[in-house]
């Protein structure tokens, strides 16, 4: 069921002689132009650009998990760990080795691919729930490891590292946050394009076959172990790049930024967005940033508006939203919207 979302999407994209193929690319140009214009006139503040950038960053992280879980059938509760590795790689290279920010991205990608690939090797022996638990342990361990006394000179321990992003190049008349928003958007577009082509290839079909029936895939000559470990590496690479971008635009990393709640948030983002859908990753990223961060403020506002006599738990709205979504749209928001669209067209 989940794969139909992807199939219908790519079929539409390929419709011959149609402009619809380019509609997403068009959106990619029009949207930032409008936003930058908004920023110039003061309608969109720098802080809002940061928020938008964070949404895109989380979308890349969610995409990494969707590739692994949605298309390859491996569950991970530990992607926050790879996010942290990416962020720290970037922060340490910028802060202590004076690298330009763009050069840290390939380094973070490589570090995370290696980490993910190595973690994927023993994880091969673990299926389903056991893999989930092993990855969860990773997510719990990483913040502690970052505080470890003997690597504190490098990680700066619990106090974290301040990162400073460079000014826009060529004297572009943009603020830091506007410039980084464009950079993050371009990188995200590239990452999504690569992911779509990957899934649309022989490799992608092998990955999906492994998800649907590993034994059958093996019988057809797919090297299951190889694909699974490489996929774990690629997934970690995606999340690591997201982490590096997060460190760069947020200008600060600390162990507290990458507690295990982050891993859960990425998983929730993937499920809410649509676990086997690329547009789902975008929705998931927005969900992580908006609902996660503002559930607390929203709860307060609502209880103040209706003048509730009791104090609500900050996570109440988050929980209710999650339960409601899972009932109303079991295939995630992307799947739910696609189903809704099909029904509307039939009317």
């Amino acid at each position, binding site marked *: 069921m989940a794969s139909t979302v992807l199939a219908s999407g790519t079929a539409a994209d390929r419709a011959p002689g149609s402009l619809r193929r380019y509609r997403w690319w068009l959106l990619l140009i029009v949207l930032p132009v409008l936003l930058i214009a908004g920023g110039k006139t003061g309608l969109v*503040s720098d802080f809002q650009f940061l928020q938008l950038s964070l949404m895109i960053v989380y979308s890349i992280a969610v995409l990494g998990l969707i590739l692994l879980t949605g298309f390859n059938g491996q569950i991970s509760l530990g992607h926050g760990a790879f996010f942290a590795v990416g962020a720290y790689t970037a922060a340490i290279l910028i802060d202590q080795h004076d690298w330009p920010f763009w050069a840290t991205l390939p380094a973070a990608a490589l570090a995370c691919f290696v980490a993910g690939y190595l973690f994927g090797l023993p994880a091969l022996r673990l299926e389903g729930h056991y893999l989930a638990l092993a990855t969860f342990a990773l997510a719990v361990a990483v913040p502690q490891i970052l505080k470890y006394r003997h690597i504190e000179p490098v990680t700066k321990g619990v106090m974290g590292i301040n990162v400073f992003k460079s000014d826009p190049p060529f004297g572009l008349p943009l603020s830091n946050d506007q410039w980084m928003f464009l950079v993050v958007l371009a990188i995200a577009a590239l990452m999504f394009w690569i992911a779509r082509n990957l899934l649309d290839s022989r490799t992608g079909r092998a990955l999906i076959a492994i998800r649907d029936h590993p034994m059958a895939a093996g019988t057809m000559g797919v090297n299951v172990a190889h694909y699974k470990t490489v996929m774990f590496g690629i997934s970690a690479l995606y999340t690591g790049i997201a982490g590096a971008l997060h460190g760069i635009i947020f200008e600060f990393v600390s162990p507290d930024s990458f*507690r295990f709640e982050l891993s859960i948030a990425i998983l929730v983002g993937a499920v809410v967005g649509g676990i086997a859908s690329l547009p789902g990753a975008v929705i998931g990223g927005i969900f992580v940033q908006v609902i996660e961060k503002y559930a607390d403020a929203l709860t307060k506002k609502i209880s103040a508006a209706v003048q509730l006599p009791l104090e609500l738990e900050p996570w109440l709205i988050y929980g209710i939203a999650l339960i409601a979504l899972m009932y109303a749209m079991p295939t995630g928001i992307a799947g739910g919207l696609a189903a809704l669209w099909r029904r509307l067209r039939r009317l």
Partner: protein
Amino acid sequence: MRLSKLMLAGAGALALAFTATAASAQKKYDDGASDTEIRIGHTNPYSGPASAYGQIGKTIEAYFKKVNDGGGINGRKITFISYDDGYAPPKTVEMVRKLVEEDKVLFVFQTLGTPPNTAIHKYLNAKKVPQLFVATGASVWGQPKEYPWTMGWQPDYQTEGVIYAKHILANVKDPKIAVLMQNDDYGRDYFNGFKRGLGKDANKIVQVATYEVADPTIDSQIIALKNSGANAFFNITTPKFAAQAIKKAHEIGWKPAHYLNNVSVSVGSVMKPAGLEASQGLISAGYLKDPTDPQFDKDADMAAWRAFMDKFYPNGDKTSTFPTYGYAVSSTLAEVLKRAGDNLTRENVMKQAASMKNLEVPLLIPGIKINTSATDFYPIQSVRLQRFEGATWHLFGDVLSNEAD
């Protein structure tokens, strides 16, 4: 003729220009200030392991409500915007960026905690937004040369650490010292001061244990410290862990000379949860009149504070030091803003904050005054020692100033 006309016109234009600048010099505003409003930003842990400090934020909010009810400061209402950061630095960074870039506050005030303030230290100084009277006593907040936009308020931790070290050396026979500290710059700052105070006797420290602010308990650390055979204990912990440490030490029958850092002297938030029995004999340093100390029952400041609590923060804890702290620090800020007058630029706010001479602030222990200058960004630099007896703190000894120098 033509020339004189021209000159006359020129002089007129010049005069006009002068009056225009004179008029604009009277009222000057940066972001967050106007004829009717002053916007102040704040972050505080209202949730999480350090949520006991949430009382400070609520007190400050109540204080400015009182100010606004009385007509504001120089006719301007105070808009106090406070966000929960849960004592987590990344959350502080996000909330402070929101305060500066979206809420457009004039300055940030009383952001709480050493790790959270460290995370925003460089950002605010790069943006030239005052980070005023931070709620932490780390010694790094008083560096006007490197960080001209950041100022502390309470006595710094290093000074306090030195005072305890000297007291141990003078009063504990054959001291063997155990230390429990939070594993961050707050803990390290106290510990460094303490070691400096011990000087050549630093080898008297027999065991140091640390904890993370996210840890659920510190029971095992206390047991390890007891087993070291120490007879003096320097307890560098935030309220939740201070209460746990006092309680656990009492439960396992460890009775060292117990020195508790000033950040956890709140009777309502620490001694009561730990048990008054377990808290007997604790030694700490204070600079604020404790609301549970009967010697201040007839004090005018205390009466004014109680009336304020009844009216503006009725469900606040009147045995806790956090509302007295919030009241005193808000009074200091109100005085700074009053002196800033109509020149509400960020620069002038810092200038006024850095030129307080012998300022008397309500609820400070008699004899302690606030002094700052362009080179001295440590407003309060004096404390008195106090011992916990019965249900309250009892001050003893003289006012101690600049012990670290």
